[in-house]
């Protein structure tokens, strides 16, 4: 009787202690993790003479917004244009990848046709081949199509995402056939069934996968670096490295430029973070 009463109390106490002990790890770890970021933000508010000081200061002695003003008025760096390039590519790819992934995922889940298994196995097999392995022929194809240094060059070859098709096939399998037949009874065309029922049923998964696709495209570096070699078509990540290589002795300016490239979209991603995390834990996608 005694032990039975004592046990829950003891466990609760033990748990509570554990609960506070974890902060001994979490809080220092957080501080270390955020330090590089804070360093960059502080640096972007320092004056040019302060950034050249050796040893460096941590807090800006004299807080200035001049670096940001310089970046925004720099004619060599029309940030608006590069934001636009990045946005066009990322949004176009999200739209087309969501369309093809859901359509073909549904097709492979709910229809039978000749060669279906062969095509599906081929799609699965391509998932094992990293993109980088085909980047040389990919570049040569774009060169022959005249798509180098065109935003289309990053959109046209990116319409099919093997993983997306695989993912939405899995989701489509769980949609009941009765639902589809009911729509057909009501006289819906096959495309209408896809548009009104499948897209609706896949909605949450589409939102999650769309966020991931946007993020990958927005942050992509190697492939755009190869395809876009002219300044006015480049995307933000390429411009950022170009700019910091041009101004290696003016860290206060490159720091401000980095903040302006990273922060606005990171802010958007923070709101979408729940979906992205859900997408990653659901798919193990990397």
């Amino acid at each position, binding site marked *: 009787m005694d032990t039975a009463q004592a046990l829950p109390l003891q466990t609760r106490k033990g748990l509570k202690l554990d609960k506070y002990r974890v902060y001994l790890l979490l809080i220092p770890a957080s501080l270390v993790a955020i330090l*590089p970021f804070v360093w960059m933000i502080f640096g972007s508010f320092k004056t040019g003479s302060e950034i050249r000081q050796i040893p460096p200061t941590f807090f800006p002695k004299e807080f200035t917004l001049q670096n940001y003003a310089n970046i925004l008025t720099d004619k060599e760096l029309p940030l608006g244009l590069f934001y636009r390039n990045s946005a066009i590519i990322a949004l176009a790819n999200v739209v087309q990848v969501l369309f093809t992934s859901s359509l073909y995922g549904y097709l492979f889940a709910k229809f039978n046709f000749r060669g279906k298994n062969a095509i599906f196995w081929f799609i699965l097999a391509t998932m094992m081949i990293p993109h980088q392995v085909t980047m040389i022929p990919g570049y040569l194809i774009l060169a022959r199509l005249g798509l180098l240094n065109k935003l289309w060059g990053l959109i046209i070859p990116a319409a099919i995402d093997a993983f997306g098709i695989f993912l939405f096939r899995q989701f489509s399998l769980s949609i009941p056939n009765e639902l589809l037949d009911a729509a057909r009874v009501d006289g819906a065309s096959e495309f209408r069934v896809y548009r009104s029922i499948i897209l609706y049923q896949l909605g949450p998964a589409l939102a999650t996968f769309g966020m991931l696709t946007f993020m990958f495209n927005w942050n992509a570096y190697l492939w755009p670096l190869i395809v876009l070699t002219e300044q006015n078509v480049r995307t933000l990540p390429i411009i950022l490295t170009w700019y910091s290589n041009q101004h290696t002795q003016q860290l206060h300016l490159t720091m401000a430029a980095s903040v302006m490239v990273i922060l606005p979209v990171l802010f958007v991603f923070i709101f979408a973070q729940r979906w992205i995390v859900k997408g990653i834990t659901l798919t193990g996608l990397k």
Partner: protein
Amino acid sequence: MSRSKLEMATQTLRTAQGIAGLFFRLRHGRDSAQKQFIFSAVTPLVLYMGFFTLFPMLWGLALAFFEYSARRSGGPVLGLGGDNPFVGLQNFGDMLNFAPDAPLNVRQFHISIRTTLLFAFLILPLNLAITLPLAVSIESAHDRLKGFFRMFFFLPVLAPSVGVAIMWSYVYHPQRGLLNGILTSLNGKLVGINWTGDQSLIFLGVPIALIAVIIAYLWQDLGYNLVIFIAALQSIPESIKDAARMDGVSGWQMFRYISLPLLKPTILLTSVLTMISSFQVFDIIQVMTEGGPNDQTRVLLLDIYNNAFRFQRMGWASAVSVVLFLMVFSISLVQTRLLRTEWEY
């Protein structure tokens, strides 16, 4: 009353029409409508994937057997042959030339393979050693703080890796960097270590420059495995934990004997994914060190990029791509085997 009757009547009529229509189409047109839908959707898919997926794969494989540069016009078919001669297995044969006087590109290939493997095999244990305890700690924090900490450590995943690389180069900057600044204030004397550019700095056989990029890579990459582990921890049934608690186990015992065994399948899977993605590292290294100093951080993808797009040795670069593919593919096979194993608890 009459209105609902009217509605019922039209509803019945519509349903009847629909069923009649379905029967009609089932007998006459339904099959062909479906066939048409399938045909009009699958044809573009096959053509598209044939051109943008299968064709580049075969072309890339073919290039590995040529000495090819896009600058030379070459033969009539895809510029192969002519000035871009067929060399058979020579590219692959060269890879096995371990003589000290082997051509530079061959020696650089060997360095790249070694660096890539070193990179991946250092990343994996370090990643797990940080993410597992971190995931357990976050999972046992107070409910309100859980979400905050998870988001906090996950944020770097969302940032462009180029931005992360530039940010870390401010930390490692020899004169104006944060790291030397901290060391200077601890030391009292000026510290000016060139963390990413001094080839003589080596720690336990690993170049410091490589360790520097590994830290930056880990900083960005941790969030992936972290959220996967947190999700896996949350899926462990409360009843098992309660039973253990009734037996009075400590926090460490709970982790060692309950959570860890149950996380095993997740750990194996994330290990494979971490391995595959670290074989393909490029962004952070290209921005921070460009493979230097003295090729100490040269990885395979950087080797491929430099050969193909800076020195126009596309045949050789394609052969290196085939090697990279085989490395990733063999790890992927392990992954599919793991996925096929059934786990239950």
